[in-house]
């Protein structure tokens, strides 16, 4: 898995590449550091697969941002991952763009 972080003003973009599963999820968890960003965009355009281990991280990150008065967006979700978000109802909780 690869994680590339770019900052533009108060917006932090985290681009993830590869499978997010039980084994790789800790890597992603380590990469989800938001600092004082008020807006975080998680770019999943190169994530073909995500299991519950990844969902747990997205939910935790979403709650952290909300608690800090910020906003987290999940962008460019591939159809297979989108289906997982739909099945679990996460597409209604997370901000998908």
């Amino acid at each position, binding site marked *: 898995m690869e994680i590339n972080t770019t900052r533009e003003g108060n917006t932090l973009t985290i681009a993830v590449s590869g*499978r997010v*599963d*039980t*084994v*790789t999820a800790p890597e992603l968890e380590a990469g989800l550091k938001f600092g004082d960003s008020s807006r975080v965009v998680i770019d999943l355009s190169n994530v*073909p*697969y995500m*299991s*519950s*281990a990844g*969902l*747990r991280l997205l*939910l935790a990150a979403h709650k952290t941002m909300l608690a800090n008065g910020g906003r987290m967006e999940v962008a460019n979700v591939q*159809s*297979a*991952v989108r*289906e*997982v978000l739909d*099945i*679990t*109802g996460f597409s209604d909780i997370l901000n998908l763009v």
Partner: protein
Amino acid sequence: MTFATTKFRAFLPAATFAMAAEFLMGLSDSVICGHVLGETGLAATNLMQGVFEIVTFAGMMTAIGSSVLFATEVGALHVRRARGYFTLGFSASVAAGLLVSAVLAAVRLPVIGAFGASPEVSAMASSYWLWFLPAAALQPVAFFLGTMCYTDGDARLSFLSYLVQLGMNCLLSVPLTMWFGAAGCAAGTGIGSFAAIAVLLFHFRKTGCMLGFSGHFILPDLLRISRLSLGDAGKNLGKATLMFALNSYVISRFGSDALPVLAVVLMTIGISEVFDGVANAAQPLASVYIGERNAFLTKRVMRAALAAALIEGGGAMLLLLAFPGLMIALAGIEIPATAAEAAVAVRLSSIALPALALVLLFNSYYVFIRREGLAIALTFAAVLVAPLALFPVGGALGGARGVWMALGLAPLAALAVFALYELVRWGLSRFPFLIPADREAAIRVFDLELDPVGICATSAAVGEHLRQKGIDAGRASKASLLVEEALMVVRDRNAGRRIRAEVTVDLNGGLALVIRDDGEIFDITDADARVSSLRAYLVSNLMTALPNRRNLTTTGFNRNVFKL
């Protein structure tokens, strides 16, 4: 070690011990009469060997077919039909017990007279036969229930019933034989059969018992049970015929004094019954794999069974070649000249054991794959036709020792001819399991031990395999997700245990995913199961989104089938 071979090896000791207990049970009356009543008692019970085989035949005629059909229907997820076969088989076993008992009562005196044995041996055999009739009625029911209980995954209770039967038989038969002679020995056998039935009834009180009664009586189904059973049960009918022929031949050629040696030879060949445990251990897996039409895994489990049969058969032969005295001591022969002749006979006849182990395995296998004709042909060739053709030749050329040698070589000769026939008929590519290779190409099996790295690697491999096979990314990803989440849930439920799992991807006529594990039995497909984690929540929602899913737990492991 794969899931299939691990499970097979887990089933093997119980199945082998169960058959060993059954062998000892069949042997117990000869052993008890031999030790308590001397060589005359041994000779008298030897005349009964054909009767024992007929009673076993009656039990097997209902049990084997019913268990195969029951397991296959459960494998195909048709529980109601499976219970129908159980009901039908049970009714038939009760009827078979009563019928065989009535027939044996009617033919007792004429058959004993026809042997032409000495008056002392004939009188003892007649007395035993009369008191054996209740056991003849009960034993088919006990055998049926024991087999079905085993097929339903309760190997422990099935084995316990054998132990109780053997224990009761020995505990009661010894004093009863001392007090009442051969009649007491037979009465003890009947009480043992009754005790076994009583133990087996406890299976119906257990959670997860799939056996049950369901109104079902269709003549074609009864004929199916009989046809499937005949391949396996036929060997007992063949052996019964051979025993009657052998007893008559030996008495007429060598006199009643040769009967104790013949008894030891038949005990030696009878050890092969223990090898039936190999097929019984393979059956719960093989039947389900065959029900799924999974040629790859069917071959995998049968290869493991083949190796086990050769080891058991070869090991027993080597043991008896080195220590023939074991059988002589078991039979209770004390006259030195008879014991010396019996030692030669044991060595000569033990050559049959490896071949018989293979015959029994393939006999059962042909029944599994619905080639009952082959099963019947192989059985009759190995246990009746070849011995019947060879022992008079052996007797003419080498006297009594020629007969024992012929009995040792006959199964090997039959097996060789049969293998040649299969090679000519089906070719080397399908030998010896006769399964066409075409279905194998669409099946891929992944074996793993449950740890996060293995689970995620398998999940990724399943997805990659499906994409390579042209399955769209959405379905491939869903299959991959199902594998990871389901196996992680299984791992979480079995914390601290080593769990093996097997994932089959079957692309024959659609995309089917079969996930098996040997952990705690539970239904992962239950969409209403308690949700205690995000993972369990995802699995629960996946189950709701997958209407075509089934769980099966009957044979001692979890099996979850998903059609995507």
